[in-house]
């Protein structure tokens, strides 16, 4: 029972990380209609930039995440401007291929700067809490709390702020949004930037638990795609539910069956979901 509680908390913490990564990705899909295959690489870069400011420059942990998030926001904007924007009218295969090129580029850059070896980021938050007999590390608590706070802020941003509302408007109806004077090009940049910012927060939070490597984004990339397909591409509630469901399923299978099965569970679920509903579980019914 103790093991179960412990793993449940680990699962929820992992879910928080997935959630921050998945929400950005699903927003980008909703606004740009692009599955950004470079999302995992942005996560990886976010982790390294946080590491750089924390370890090499020596700023406090929270500031390091903040600076990294801003840098990645700019990088996301540039990615949209230089790569996705020129391809906005190209066949859908083209922007996926371009995103793959960007992904390789980011990985190579990270490897050139920080090397291919694993690096450890010392956790500035130590200690642990006892909840229901289980020992939960403080870092995981921080992850869960931050995820909830960021999600709340994001919801507020989308519902209340002008920028957020335009994102939502475009997500729902691109032509209509253009007609009422929203500039889709601007919103596209903003959205990719925001997704990079969110995924950097996720990376900065999880980096002290995991090791850093240039390919650390690969499996996250695939899992987050599984999540947003599960939740229906472009759906925010779907991404949130999918993140926690998948993270808990993954932690539990890894604990009680084997770690390889835990890693594969996301994809097995994904294949099963697509077999039943080719457009995801929570997707709006397509008129057919």
């Amino acid at each position, binding site marked *: 029972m103790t093991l179960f509680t412990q793993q449940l908390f680990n699962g929820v913490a992992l879910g928080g990380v997935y959630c921050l990564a998945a929400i950005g990705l699903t927003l980008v*899909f909703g606004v740009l209609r692009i*599955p950004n295959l470079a999302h995992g690489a942005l996560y990886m870069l976010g982790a390294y930039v946080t590491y750089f400011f924390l370890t090499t420059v020596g700023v406090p942990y929270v500031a390091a995440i903040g600076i990294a998030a801003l840098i990645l926001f700019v990088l996301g904007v540039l990615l949209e401007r*230089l*790569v996705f924007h*020129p*391809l906005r009218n*190209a*066949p*859908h*295969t*083209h*922007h*996926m*291929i*371009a995103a*793959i*090129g*960007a*992904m*390789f*580029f*980011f*990985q*190579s*850059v990270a*490897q*050139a700067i920080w090397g*291919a070896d694993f690096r450890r980021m010392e956790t500035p938050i130590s200690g642990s809490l006892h909840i229901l007999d289980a020992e939960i590390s403080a870092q995981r608590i921080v992850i869960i709390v931050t995820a909830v706070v960021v999600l709340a802020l994001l919801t507020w941003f989308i519902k209340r702020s002008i920028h957020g509302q335009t994102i939502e408007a475009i997500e729902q109806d691109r*032509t209509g949004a253009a007609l009422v004077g929203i500039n889709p090009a601007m919103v596209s940049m903003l959205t990719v930037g925001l997704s990079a910012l969110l995924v950097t927060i996720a990376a900065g939070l999880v980096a002290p638990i995991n090791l850093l490597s240039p390919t650390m984004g*690969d499996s996250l990339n*695939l899992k987050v*795609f*599984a999540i947003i*397909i599960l939740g229906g*591409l472009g759906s925010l509630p779907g991404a949130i539910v999918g993140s926690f469901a998948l993270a808990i399923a993954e932690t539990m299978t890894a604990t009680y069956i084997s770690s*390889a099965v835990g*890693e*594969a569970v996301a*994809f*097995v679920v*994904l*294949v099963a979901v*697509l*077999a039943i509903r*080719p*457009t*995801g579980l929570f997707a709006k019914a397509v008129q057919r």
Partner: protein
Amino acid sequence: MNGLKNPRILGTLAVLLVVALTPIAFGDEAYIMRVITVGLCSTIAVYGMNIILGFTGQLSLAQGGFFGIGAYAVGLLTTDFDWSFWQAFLVGVVGTSAIGYLSGLIALRTKDEYFAIFTMAIGFIIYLTISRWEAVTHAHSGVNNVKFPAAGDLVDFSNPTAMFYLVFAILLICVYITYAIRRSSVGRTLLTIRTSEDLADAIGVNVGLSKQLAFAASAFFGGIGGGLYASVVGFIGPDAATVDKTFEFLMFILVGGMGTVAGPLVGTMIVTFLFEFFQDFQAYRFIVLGPIIIALVIFAPRGIVGYLGGFVDKRARQRRIGSVGANASSRPHDSTGPEASARTGTSADNVTTTEEKN
């Protein structure tokens, strides 16, 4: 053979001839021959990608996985089970096609992004199985001493040049199959789906079944390429099945030209040489190659062969206009021209938008 007057066929034959003659230049250098032969194995897998991505317009990210299945089937069966290469190869290719056909049962229901991500998941499941199922695949220790094909006393396939010609012969068959598909109604069916699934459906194309068969065909080629690769290099590890492998194939086809007959060969050969050139900074090659991929899709999405082909078509059309021009321009409404049709086209579009909302 009036085909010899066609510049496309002529060009493809010229490229094949150049490749066929490489052993004359490099026959003594085993390393270079091996690099080229491995390149030809990749080319076969890229021809598979060409069918699903180039012809059908669906981005499949499972090709590396299929390549891996073919490689591991040959690798494991010829070592742990002591089969002959040919038996293992046959089983590997049939098995890979079957897996492609079965996963195609789900893939046929998905489209666009969903198809791409679905196939990425298939590719990753294959990779995870190979890299983690230690009892069968030896995981990261890989498979050593994969057998060469045997042909009695006739040919010794441990000779790099002999192996080169075996792979080249099989490649020729693949190029021919691509050519035959391209000009048959099967190819037309796939190209129709690439242009518009709805329109394809409206003229009676069974889109789902066609996609499934195209996916199975891509797996078939992937299995052939992987099976040969295992024998050529003699040692295989899980990296033969990674998603990175898929991305490599993607780059090959992009450089050569999607949907063309010669593109996969041209692209793979050029990029393979580039990779060799960047050998010393292997790990950083994508600092240069990544932006090249992006620039290619933005500025040159048709690839080398695609552009040459477009050039040939344009000249052919100009010649034809030169001969029948007087006849065509005598039609009265021809003077309305594209501008007029563009204008009326827009008004028709407006009608659709309002109509579709009902």
